[in-house]
């Protein structure tokens, strides 16, 4: 849909309500960049990173620079990282927070990104950068898949010895997948490329459940 990924040297944003797949998109983007050997950083406004899932998403954790910044520090932190140069992707996960940022902040961030050729990916609940973003993607939750079979298998065992159960199953595989619809609100798109598509996010830790 994006025709080659996030545009380099531009500000891109992905937005949607809770459980629409914003975090998963960030994990996938960071994983793809780091797997190619590029440098990437994540500015996390709510310290919301889950290291285990990030690892399952293909992020080599030792190569990821993670900055837990408060709401007021997020933009400054992002600017510092982008200004340093050499980062291919700097993701800014604002979560549900809505920072009150002046328009000039987005202009400045876009200019620095253009100068350094860095992809700045912003994830938020609402479209924040507006017309200053080169690409704007909206996510909407479509369907949730619960692992009924896994739950059915687990329930009879709840009466068993707790510790034995804890050894058998490392992580609860209750939700197995989340499907989201993706619509490209702003961005370069050729005629044959679709403006809408769907993404399925699979529960990564289901594999580790040895029931």
């Amino acid at each position, binding site marked *: 849909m994006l025709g080659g990924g996030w545009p380099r040297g531009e500000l891109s944003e992905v937005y949607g309500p809770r459980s629409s797949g914003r975090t998963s998109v960030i994990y996938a983007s960071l994983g*793809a960049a780091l*797997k190619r050997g590029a440098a990437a950083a994540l500015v996390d406004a709510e310290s919301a990173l889950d*290291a285990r899932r*990030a690892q399952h998403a293909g992020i080599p954790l030792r190569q990821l620079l993670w900055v837990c910044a408060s709401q007021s520090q997020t933009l400054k932190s992002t600017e510092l990282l982008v200004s*340093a140069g*050499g980062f291919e992707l700097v993701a800014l996960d604002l979560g549900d927070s809505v920072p009150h940022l002046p328009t000039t902040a987005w202009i400045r961030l876009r200019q620095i990104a253009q100068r350094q050729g860095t992809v700045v990916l912003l994830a938020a609940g609402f479209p924040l950068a507006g017309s200053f973003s080169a690409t704007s993607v909206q996510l909407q939750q479509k369907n949730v898949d619960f692992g009924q079979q896994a739950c059915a298998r687990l329930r009879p065992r709840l009466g068993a010895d707790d510790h034995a159960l804890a050894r058998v199953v490392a992580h609860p595989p209750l939700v197995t997948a989340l499907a989201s619809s993706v619509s490209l609100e702003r961005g370069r798109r050729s005629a044959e490329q679709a403006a809408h598509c769907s*993404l399925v996010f699979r529960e990564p830790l289901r594999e580790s459940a040895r029931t």
Partner: protein
Amino acid sequence: MRIACAHAPQIALQAVLRGLAEPHEREAPIALTTGPGARAPILGLTRNARLAGACLGMTVTQARAMVPSLRVMRVRQADVDAAQAALQDLGLSFAPRIEAESGRVFFQVGDLGSLYPNERAVAQAIGARATQLGLAVRVAIASSKGLARVGTRAGAIVILPGVAGAAKARLAGLPLTVLDLDEEMHKTMRHWGIKTVGELASLPGPEVTLRLGATGVHFHRLANGMDAEPFLPQPPADAIEEGTEVDYPIESWEPLSFLLRGLLDRVLQRLACRSLACAGLTLRLSLNPRGFDLREIALPSPTREASILLQLIRLDLERRPTDTGVVGMTILIRPARVRSTQLDLFRPNGPAPERLAATIARLSALVGPEHVGAPRVVDSWKEEMMAIEFPMVEPITSPTTRGKPSENNNGQQATLGIHRFRPPRDIEVLIGPTGPTALRGKETTARILIAAGPYRMSGEWWAGGGFCREYWDVHASDGALYRIHQDRESSRWYLDGYYD
């Protein structure tokens, strides 16, 4: 075997002069004392002070009477040690094995023939390197340690031939003082009317042995260009330390940075001598009137850039300023091999290590050092547990995927992430006959449409901090898919996060 000896005369005076930030300060008449007070004896004098009339052994008052503009400085053992260590680094910049004694360093230079046209060029290079380290040295190259030591007393650059007869001829015209005879031996020689090394060498060996004993034989052999003193190499010091003190407390960054820059330059020169870089430093600030402040500056990759290190120190001081003025500072460097960078044609260039170090330092100053780093999975049964570690610039492994991205991404699968609340939020949950039916908390208040669970997990009881939880995945009426859990011990409910 060819041994070089670099000798720093008056090393205590040189140690003090190294600490002077401005080169023109060294031109002023300077006297060295051991203690405070007007009656302290003068132990060392610069050439200008000596020319102005000051002499060794005078008191400070007497010297100041002779030279009103005399600057009196106290010698610190730490400065002398640093100068001695710098002298050892000088040796290590030419040879892997050195032997040091007070004011001197010995090292093998026999294998430097392919780098320098002759031994005089080697000696000149040693002198030039010493100047970079802030030391003035005399250099001698000889076939043994003792002869090299004698050579350093004979002139600024002395090359003694390897053949004993030729070395004897070279030493013959020199005064006996170059042998550094003890007082008794010196008196005997004077009594015998012997004034030069050549005259001592011409004495018959058995007669010297009979009259002067082992000491006499040693000097007689030296005078004949023969020496059997072994070369005993010592391992170099692991850390590199430099320090300075000031007479008045410094309370602002500008003068402090001026002194720190000088210290860093000296330390990095020494590192460069050993082909090493700084992997981290410890800054010890002596505070006024007493006490000290210790700071650890970590680096993601070894560097020899003074400006980067200075910037990191400045950011650390801005983040955590000292309570009082600074009257002294010591820098301890942890050396490491210089990071070799081999760029990959097929891999994007990452940030320059030095710039990355400065950026991480700025970020640490902004958000706190505990909030910047590389995430790490912790070996724990609690799935929310994770840690953050200091980012190290390590060689990135070969790209695992390469090529064009998929053209048709409709229905493409990705890993489901979770947006964690850290720490888990306290919530109230309404329980129905089939499980949770509603939840209320700071993050959300919603009815629960679908609840999957419970999934009970317990663990870490063996480590003392055991837990027993029941996890639920709930689809709430606000559209979000939450993960909640109940602590079985306290019966309280917590919101872990939402799938996203």
